């Protein structure tokens, strides 16, 4: 007997032929929670990876493509899950409540899918940083936690090439898109890389954060920058 990571209900692993003879699969969610954890499938926006009714570029990405400064900084983003209310609950519990262990919900999905996402394997993994204050308060950086899972798969190193300025610590969600586009870059470079880069974050909302980070790395000499987020 184990507990569901999300709702802490008992998971009763019923003995079936497969559980009897196959190596037991690590179940981290109960059936009810598991059924709510849907993957992005079917057509996507080829830039940000968002689920779309048909293969096309989404409105957010069209805006990035018309912006001269940011048009070429990011190759593309790939997310695993649509940002549903259920996903929002998990991520809230994970990063705001600080329930670090919840990353185990995502680990098997990341391991399974990451290899299909990118045309190269030789990139440096760069997690999106938190401000020092927030990092202390939260005691962990959720982007680093995801990056670590990816790193074990690729045997690539994680390099903290970016830092976040503390004056920009105000909550992103309170600003409108227009405000965000105008916002100054909240990051600064602590190390320039000559390799391709995989940026890692938990959520891709409008793409602001990822584009800001990518721009700095691109200007510092990284040829190709890709990104991975849990949700879009």
């Amino acid at each position, binding site marked *: 007997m*184990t*507990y569901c990571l999300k709702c*802490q209900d*008992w998971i009763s692993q019923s003995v079936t032929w497969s559980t009897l003879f196959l190596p037991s699969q690590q179940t981290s969610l109960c059936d009810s929670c598991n059924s709510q954890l849907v993957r992005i499938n079917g057509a996507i926006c080829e830039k940000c990876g968002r689920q779309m009714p048909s293969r096309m570029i989404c409105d957010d990405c069209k805006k990035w493509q018309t912006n001269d400064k940011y048009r070429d900084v990011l190759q593309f983003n790939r997310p695993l899950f649509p940002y549903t209310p259920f996903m929002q609950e998990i991520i809230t*519990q994970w990063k705001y*409540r*600080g*329930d*670090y*262990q919840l990353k185990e919900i995502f680990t098997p999905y990341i391991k399974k899918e990451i290899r299909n996402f990118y045309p190269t394997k030789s990139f440096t993994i760069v997690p999106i940083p938190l401000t020092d204050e927030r*990092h*202390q308060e*939260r*005691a*962990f*950086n959720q982007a680093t936690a995801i990056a670590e899972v990816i790193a074990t798969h690729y045997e690539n190193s994680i390099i903290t090439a970016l830092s976040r300025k503390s004056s920009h610590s105000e909550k992103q969600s309170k600003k409108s898109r227009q405000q965000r586009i105008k916002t100054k870059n909240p990051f600064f470079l602590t190390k320039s890389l000559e390799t391709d880069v995989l940026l890692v974050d938990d959520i891709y909302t409008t793409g602001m954060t990822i584009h800001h980070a990518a721009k700095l790395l691109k200007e510092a000499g990284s040829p190709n920058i890709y990104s991975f987020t849990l949700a879009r």
Partner: protein
Amino acid sequence: MNFSKTLAGKLLLTSELPLTKPTIDYLIRTDQLKQLPSITTKYGRYQCNRCGNKNKQLFANIPCARCNHTHLYCRNCVQTGRVLQCDTLITWNGTVPSWSLQAQPCYWTGTLTPPQQKAAQSITQAISTHQNELLIWAVCGSGKTEMLFPAITKSIKERKRICIATPRADVVRELFPRLQHAFPHTEIEALYADSPDRTDKGQLIISTTHQLIRYHEAFDVMIIDEIDAFPFHHDQTLPYLTDRACKLDATSIYLTATPRPEHKRKIRQRKLPVQFVPIRFHGYPLPIPTLKIEINLRKKLKQGTEPKALQQFLVTRSTSRQLLIFVPTIELLKKVADHYQEVAVHAEDPARKEKVDQFRQKKIKTLVTTTILERGVTFPSVDVVVLDAGHHVFDEAALVQIAGRAGRSPGDPTGDVLFIHQGKTNAMEDAIAQIKMMNKKGKKR
């Protein structure tokens, strides 16, 4: 500055202290604050000292950026603020708070019925003799809040600290204004998640049991409402919290209309003192449920065919009362509600509160419901039907509580209670036996 009222009896994470770092350091240096380890590990066992969790599966490791070590945190109480192993818990070790002296704190002008008075006396006596525990077995509709007033009055006069704990936030919200009204000069606070009435210096605290996670040896009197609604079986957290919130010589008063088997056993073995309140405040006996068997009931319900027993009941009943129909499952809820074109409500229903309010305002004549309306809610004049009363969700306590929805007002002190089943169960028989026992006790006085 005097911190004793805000900090005495509390058990807080350093981050929850409403104080600056220099003040905290000063209070620790002068031994007014005590630091305790947040998580203890001993012989391979873990314990979270905030919520009492000892279940290893509910601890996890975190690579902590605060102390640069990987260590434990507690997942059991993460909803009320994460406990890191590198954190400390803080308790007050300074002067004892002195609550204001009140000669006559109670402004309630009502009178208690003789059975209420008897219960009130035994509660007051239990507290003054520092009796450990007392269970008040009071039927649904006996008016238990008022029974508490004499003991609360005496405790306030003696400058004691009192807690009323309940599993449900609804109850806290309902009790708070009533107690404020009755004890207008007493510092009262209401604690539930996101409560606007948290003052941090209550002498009388009305709290959900979960919120007691921030208390430690605080109360002289602990009143636990609906003790049978505690999820005792697989969650030891709540009994641990209520226990820890009590001072060592405190008195615990348990209120229930339907004690759990383990409490009943202790009562029989005379290990738990009990006081019955067998009769409702209006003086009328409890309605006794009628049993009606229906062949192939479950099959009929599944097919959406109307059970004959229900049909007969519906045509013969007088329609002056509203009707509550209890069903065992959500699946059945939809079928029955569709069939009769009535409103249905269940626990996850987003419009639950609105629907119940509409029923209370008599805008809806009939409400089909799962067991969520089995307790706590009072409607003045209803008949009650339980469909498939033999289903396992309807245990003895649930059936007694459901039957207790009928006949609540002095204007209409009776009401029909009908259990439709396809085979009598022990739960049904025991529920009826319990109701009859209370009525008999009520008559004897």
